[in-house]
């Protein structure tokens, strides 16, 4: 060391100083992002793994846990009520998501056109339902859907249709839940699509017009292909959300203290209502944990299938 010439140690020292400075800066960065990872470890990751472990046990929440291996899953596979609740959930996903996406796209296209005035007002008006509590919304719709004196039946009665028992009959409970869901979520989906439309380069439209393209061709050849990733992402999010739907179905099907979860003939029994009752009313925590894990597998499977079908990556 001592025999070396002067400039080299100097450069080394400055190198070290730069490195030290960078290390200190990185330490700050790690500190800034660490709360997420700490909290996720405790309240995200740990419950996830604990839930899987729980699903191999029989447990009422109080007495000691009993290891029963795959018994919960074996029971679940032949549990007709569970599969009916899965069927109801999927039914509601299609009945609520498909109209929602179509209406939202249509509205987004209209509002996005340059010649519509009052865009701000329309955007806010359509978005408003999502700021409202689902529980409160369901309470209001319960009376709109009333069989004898509900407003909806008065309206369809005026055109000569027989009154419908919207919430009390097994055939109409699911459509009613879907209707409220569409009412609450369409505006939100529309805003996402609108944002997607606004990010499309206007030059493309100009160029297409110069080339003499018709509005319809522009729509199918430019707008739709560019909107595909946005729609794909929104559908995946809808799958994740719809498989866990709870607030609106539980309220329209009689509330959280109802003795008949899911309403008449369990026609509104979605997977999360089933899970809630199994865990917190019948205190079969292990069995409910198995339901949760199976639901997780189903969500992944549906997202994957949809993604394959569309042939693109959801993270694009």
């Amino acid at each position: 060391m001592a025999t070396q010439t002067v400039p080299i140690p100097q450069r080394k020292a400055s190198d070290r100083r730069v490195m030290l400075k960078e290390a200190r800066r990185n330490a700050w960065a790690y500190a800034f992002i660490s709360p997420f990872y700490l909290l996720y470890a405790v309240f995200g990751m740990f419950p996830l793994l604990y839930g899987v472990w729980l699903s191999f046990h029989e447990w009422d929440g109080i007495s000691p846990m009993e290891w029963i291996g795959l018994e919960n899953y074996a029971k679940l596979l032949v549990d007709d009520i569970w599969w009916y609740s899965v069927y109801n959930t999927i039914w509601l996903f299609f009945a609520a998501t498909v109209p929602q996406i179509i209406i939202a796209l249509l509205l987004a296209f209209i509002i996005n056109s340059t010649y519509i005035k009052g865009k701000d007002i329309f955007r806010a008006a359509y978005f408003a339902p999502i700021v409202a509590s689902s529980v409160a919304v369901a309470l209001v719709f319960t009376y709109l859907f009333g069989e004898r004196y509900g407003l909806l039946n008065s309206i369809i009665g005026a055109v000569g249709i027989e009154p419908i028992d919207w919430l009390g009959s097994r055939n109409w409970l699911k459509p009613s839940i879907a209707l409220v869901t569409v009412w609450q979520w369409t505006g939100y989906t529309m805003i996402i699509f609108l944002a997607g439309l606004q990010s499309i380069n206007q030059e493309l439209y100009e160029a297409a017009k110069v080339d003499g393209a018709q509005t319809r061709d522009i729509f199918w050849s430019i707008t739709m292909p560019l909107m595909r990733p946005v729609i794909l992402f929104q559908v995946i999010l809808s799958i994740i959300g719809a498989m866990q739907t709870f607030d609106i179905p539980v309220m329209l099907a009689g509330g959280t203290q109802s003795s008949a979860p899911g309403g008449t003939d369990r026609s509104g029994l979605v997977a999360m209502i089933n899970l809630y009752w199994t865990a917190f009313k019948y205190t079969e925590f292990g069995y409910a944990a198995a339901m949760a894990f199976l639901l997780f597998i189903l969500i992944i499977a549906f997202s994957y299938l949809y993604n394959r079908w569309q042939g693109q990556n959801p993270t694009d």
Partner: protein
Amino acid sequence: MASTTQGGFAARRAARSGGRDQLMGPVGMALLYTVLIGGALLTAFPFYYMLVTATHRSTTILRLPPPLWFGDALVQNYNELLANLPFWNSLFNSFAIAAIHTILVLFFCSLGGYGFAKFRFPGRNGLFAFLLATLMVPGAIGLIPSFIIMRNLGWMDSWNPLIIPGIANAFGIFWMRQYIEQAIPNDLMDAARIDGAHEFRIYWNIIVPVIVPALAALAILTFIGKWNDFFFPLLILKDEAKYTLPVALSTLRSLRGTEIGVQILGAAGAIMPILIVFIVASRQFMSGLTAGAVKGG
């Protein structure tokens, strides 16, 4: 694919071609407005119906045709609501929980977003990919274990489980990162570093004042989400005095014979405060949201 750099260009184009499209005649325009206005009225109607019904007694609600104009039973319904439900107490709980949660979210998510946006540390990409992946994990699977954890922590009937878990969440960090990355030039931080400011000071004194628009949009989204949160509070809160509004309202549905107008008034009490805030702030909020969604999408 649709990058943000095109945004300014598009805006200029749109401003220039503000005139009416030649393809769209007056009939087409009338049709578009009919669809738009009709849809907006359908969307708004349940809110109106709620306000009307809250001013009636069951005897006038259960009549054909149902009332479509305001009645005179608001005061009576209000008194009965207070007799059935600790309404103001629940409203206060909802507000306090949502407000405290929101403030903490703003702090931790902007801090995390800043960390990811402006530092190049080892493992950054992997950590960020992990953070994004957690967005796709459905919350339902961890629900029962979370409940058990909260019970073991002695947090039943406490605000902690409702406030703490989501304060540094993936969505918020992602949201803030997108904004900070492109809204703040690096020179700004470098200048402060030369002046000897340490990193937290730079975040607090320089970054935070600049990211107020993104913070405002995140605040509204977070507050709304927490205010309306139902499932987890339902599991955690057992004491009526601790109920948040949605939990309190859900008990109304089960009380047979409760006046309809009273129930609807309770629903209106949960919806109106946040709806009014939304309407007042909607212009700024919607533009912030759309901008964020473009960057996010």
